């Protein structure tokens, strides 16, 4: 292989890439001045210089006697600020420190329990603000920047910090697997800059041009990993909340479903050897049931229902609850050492 070396990317340009921000520590990703500066202002500097006039620090009510702190994004010239929903933002009176150090008191405008966002407003004319960009243009590997009041290290009039990372994937986080108060089930943007730190939620995720592609969400642990994850809620959700229809508590379709749904029936019993974490083995298939017609056998292990992974009996019950009579549901089963898929025609409960 002779290609080694040809691929060296200019390290000088990457001097801000190696972020060493750990839990409990914050790395301020200011460009390293001692690195050879062979090009015009680098992209991180440009993103920062474009975005920082639109990022504010928030202070106010916290849990108990703690003082709360966070980050907000100015999204309009008349002083609208989007941030995450918290004790601090769900009421009038949050103290807003503008990028120039000016301190104002915010008025609470509205909140969105579903997206976990809050809209505040400050009395200001011709405010600087951040453009909301199109998050769908992000591709794996694209540089992204996160800005925020992490650990409130930006004291007094200082502007917030910036961290650099790369965007990976747009995905959905299974809300019921996250901390209980995280209801959001829409898309999230996943990236590798550290933002799962106090004070970071409410800050912007920026693209290479310094435009806002998302807002750093509340700190959550993904149950898929049991770790805090770094994610942002896409700018489209932000725009819909700040400038679109009034706040909703849940997506419309979701609400409907719970009202008029008839219970679906497939005819599978799961072995009940324990409680929640029992593996979802089929103990019995009812004669004449949709499952029997589809060829499900006792002792099959249910791996997935309609592309949702089933890890335990509880997952299975949740999945069954979503089925409606008339649905064609795809079950992935482990049978011995093979994996088989069957399509079950869901019927009405007899």
């Amino acid at each position: 292989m002779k290609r080694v070396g040809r691929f060296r990317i200019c390290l000088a340009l990457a001097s801000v890439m190696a972020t060493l921000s750990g839990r409990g520590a914050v790395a301020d990703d200011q460009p390293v001045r001692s690195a050879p500066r062979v090009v015009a202002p680098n992209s991180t500097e440009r993103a920062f210089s474009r975005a920082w006039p639109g990022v504010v620090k928030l202070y106010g009510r916290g849990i108990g006697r703690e003082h709360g702190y966070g980050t907000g994004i100015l999204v309009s010239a008349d002083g609208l600020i989007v941030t995450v929903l918290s004790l601090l933002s769900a009421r009038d009176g949050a103290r807003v420190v503008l990028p120039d150090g000016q301190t104002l008191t915010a008025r609470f405008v509205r909140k969105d329990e579903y997206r976990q966002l809050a809209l505040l407003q400050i009395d200001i004319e011709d405010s600087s603000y951040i453009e909301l960009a199109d998050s769908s243009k992000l591709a794996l590997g694209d540089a992204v920047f996160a800005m925020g009041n992490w650990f409130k290290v930006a004291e007094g009039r200082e502007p917030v910090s910036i961290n650099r990372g790369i965007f990976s994937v747009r995905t959905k986080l299974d809300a019921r697997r996250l901390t209980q108060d995280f209801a959001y089930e829409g898309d999230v943007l996943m990236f590798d800059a550290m933002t799962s730190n106090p004070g970071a939620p409410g800050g912007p995720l920026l693209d290479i041009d310094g435009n806002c592609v998302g807002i750093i969400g509340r700190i959550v642990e993904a149950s898929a990993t049991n770790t805090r994850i770094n994610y942002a809620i896409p700018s489209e959700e932000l725009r819909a909340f700040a400038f679109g229809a009034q706040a909703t508590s849940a997506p419309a379709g979701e609400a409907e479903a719970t009202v008029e749904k008839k219970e679906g029936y497939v005819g599978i019993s799961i072995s009940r050897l324990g409680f929640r974490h029992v593996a979802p083995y089929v103990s019995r298939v009812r004669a004449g049931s949709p499952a029997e017609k589809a060829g499900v056998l006792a002792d099959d292990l249910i791996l997935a229902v309609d592309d949702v992974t089933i890890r335990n009996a509880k997952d299975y019950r949740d999945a069954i609850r979503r089925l409606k009579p008339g649905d064609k549901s795809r079950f992935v089963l482990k049978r011995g050492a093979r994996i088989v898929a069957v399509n079950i025609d869901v019927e009405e409960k007899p």
Partner: protein
Amino acid sequence: MTRLLMAGFLLLGAVAQVRADDASDPYALEAAKARVIRAAVTRVQSRIVTVETIGGAQPIAAGPEGVREEAFRLADGPTTGVIVSADGLILTSSINFARNPTVITVTLDDERRFVATLLGRDEIRRLALLRIEANGLSPAEWAPADEIHVGQYAIACGRGIPGDAPFASLGIVSAIGRRNGNAIQTDTKVSPINYGGPLIDIDGRVMGICVPMAGSGGALAGAEWYDSGIGFAICKEKYEFVSERLAAGEVIEQGKIGVALEEDESLIGDFLEQLLPTKEQAVRIREVMPGTPASAAGLRKGDRILAMDGQPVGDVPEMQRRLSDRAAGETITLTIKRRWRRFEVTLTLARTEDLGTIQAPESRPDEESSDDDDHTDPDAEAGEATSRPADE
């Protein structure tokens, strides 16, 4: 750093040249860099798999305070593996199986899903080898060790977060030869999202397998360092070192000798010795546990260990570090100093669970004096009679 101004990228034959005059445009470089990252991840994507487990329980750690769950709670979400042979061997991290799951499945990038068998585990390097009944797979291409350099770009890839593409974290190689030479250290975000996944270079070649490898102790040790900027990946040579044993179904775990060690701080009685200019660095045995390789080999309290496998041991942490890389079943040779005598003992390292049950062989422990002046064995052996097994 000889190519500060120029960056040329060539990926899969497709040329994405950035000319020297483009270097003044940071955006051309940023775009090129993103393309390179994308191409590297795309290249490895078909060689990594999603590993899912069903059943099992949270591992239990036994510590001084008794039995408890580990501080880090393992989730039951998907994890990552790397295809290492066309006929179905999947290399991943042992942490992904710490729950002892009853069922393991592997889903390829083309969405074919298989039931997998856990062959072997290496708890020292935190690796695990799976087999699926498949053929014609594309195994990962490894980056040769001599092409891995501190400072070069590294991308950690994982399937722990569901999505169309793997989760990728960009960083650099922070160090090579870490953890007894087993691991590459990286500042990419290494976490349960990519444990078992590859750390790749910008050509999409695998430099190592991401594992938790900080600290010591239970099955989840090191996981609490996730996303800290200190991540580890086991390099190819170390996988190959154990690959046959893993394929044969072995569980490789750290070997124990069964002694408590202390620094060799000489007492008054050793005053004269200390004056000697040639005083050797050693660690002293504070206690020999019964039924261990150490007791079977006739080691005694107060013995000084000068060297392990011919290399001076230095101090206790150094001795422990070197032992931490040796597996149960392997033999080591210790150079022992007992009073003025010096001899070597060879012992077979034991698994933790076997400590207390090891018995001395029928024949006397093989102790050779390396000094010519004293070939008779230390009086130690007389005392050992009691711990020797009765005739079987």
